[in-house]
């Protein structure tokens, strides 16, 4: 489903930062992958490269066989198949919750408004806040906003969901409600790629875990292997710090 081959990315702001160095990974259909690592290790950059919010310097990325790095690829069509959830929610503040979930369905998928709103309501039902349909994002709690953001991404019926630290901006008591939605998605067979600091989620829900440091993939494997018998010293020290 996702195929990343030898990707390089360097940022040149003030000083040179090698965000991704020779990164390769594969995610199969229905697989749930978590990317972990210290901050500045390039995990968010990698995730953002997967839907071309960040361009790559070298290497190739294929989504469902379509080369993202090819300039002939219709990037909007590929992005429509990839849902993305951001750390800071990024809901559209000038629209109601229902409007947020409906807009891309009507403008990109060209669905009739009634049908799109029906789908939106079903998704709000799924994330557990149908009563907030008419509210504006500013009237919701952080956890509720993030659940709306997930519903908004799901409304495009994507093949892949990307989560970029979805719980990092939330108060502790709201993390659970967002993780629950993510767990439900994983159980339903969605292909998920998530950057997260929630080691509980990584351990219990994921099929594989990728550990990154300084732009490189240091180690990858099943959660049991990474958490219980990590090979690499860097992985060991990172896990020792956070667990």
């Amino acid at each position, binding site marked *: 489903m996702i195929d990343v081959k030898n990707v390089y990315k360097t940022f040149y702001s003030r000083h040179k930062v090698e965000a991704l160095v020779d990164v390769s990974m594969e995610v199969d259909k229905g697989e749930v992958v978590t990317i972990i690592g210290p901050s500045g290790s390039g995990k968010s950059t990698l995730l953002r490269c997967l839907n071309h*919010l960040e361009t790559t310097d070298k290497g190739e990325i294929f989504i469902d066989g379509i080369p993202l790095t090819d300039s002939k690829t219709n990037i*909007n069509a590929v992005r*429509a198949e990839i849902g993305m959830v951001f750390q800071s929610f*990024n809901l559209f503040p000038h629209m109601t919750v229902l409007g947020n979930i409906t807009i891309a369905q009507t*403008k990109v998928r060209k669905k009739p408004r009634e049908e799109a709103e029906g789908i939106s309501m079903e998704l709000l039902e799924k994330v557990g806040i149908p009563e907030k349909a008419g509210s504006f994002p500013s009237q919701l709690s952080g956890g509720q906003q993030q659940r709306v953001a997930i519903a908004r991404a799901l409304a495009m019926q994507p093949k892949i969901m990307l989560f970029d630290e979805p719980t990092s901006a939330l108060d502790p008591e709201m993390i659970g409600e967002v993780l629950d939605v993510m767990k439900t998605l994983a159980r339903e067979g969605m292909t998920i790629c998530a950057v997260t600091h929630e080691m509980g989620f990584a351990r219990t829900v994921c099929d594989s875990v990728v550990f990154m440091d300084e732009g490189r993939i240091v180690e990858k494997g099943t959660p049991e292997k990474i958490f219980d018998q990590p090979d690499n010293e860097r992985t060991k020290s990172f896990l020792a710090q956070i667990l």
Partner: protein
Amino acid sequence: MDRLKELFHNPRFRNALSWIALFGILLSLVVGTFQTTKKVEYIWRWEQIPRYILFKDSREIIVEDDATVTAIDRKGNEAVIVVQDYLDTEQYYTVPNNLITLKTGDKLESGQVLAKWDQWKAGLLLKGLILTLKISIISIFLGILIGLFTGLARLSNSPAPKWLAIGYIELIRGTPLLVQIYIFYFFVGQVFRLSSFWAGALALSVFAGAYVAEIIRAGIQSIHKGQMEAARSLGMSYYLSMRFIILPQAFKRILPPLAGQFISLIKDSSLVGVIALVELTRAGREIGTSTFNYFEVFFTVAALYLILTFTLSMLVQFLERRFAVSD
């Protein structure tokens, strides 16, 4: 003494004092102006002003030669009376429909008053006001259009639109509007055969466009980049994201500076008087030169401008309240 101090620290007493001070200042302004004019021995003739806004025009239709009415042709509010004189030549008189008391076959005498009525007509000031309003509305509309495109071009990553936009903005902001109006009238107007109205309207539009472009650019840049990323990640194109996500949010934020710009524009439209357009200010000057009622005329002109700008202010405040629902 202590009680006085206590009273002075009472917030309600201080508030009341402030109101009294406000009214005192306003009153002294009015009285002051009145006293000053007394010093210069000016005779106020306010009664002369209304007729420069609306006046009653008396109209009379007088029969030229002896004749006979042969037909009355009624069309809407007007009627054409067809008459035949002794040489059998036909003549036509157009009069308001409701004033006709004649019928076919009636004899008319030379000098007879066919119809007499009063008609309300716009005075020079009202005509000027209408011209100012017209040119302002056109320039605001075109200014938004030019500003939107220039603002987006200014934010473009590709050098051609970006540097063209920067060049245009700097050129317009760096030269006086009066000079621009002359250039549009004498040069652009000649080349493209524009009427002086359109030369003036375009000069104002191009002028406003440069300022609006900078306001719109700042508005777009003030929207968090996560908004664009979220929209693009849903598969929306750059155009769709701008149209439905970024611009509506930016527009809400830039409403106050935009309103200021357009209020400025209404006032700047007084400069097109130099290219023979009798807008409000020029109308005032023309009345002044013929009647020497400069005081009353320009107070009236100021009040009329204030009506336009204040209406615009109110309109924008209404829009701001409408947009505030999502806060």
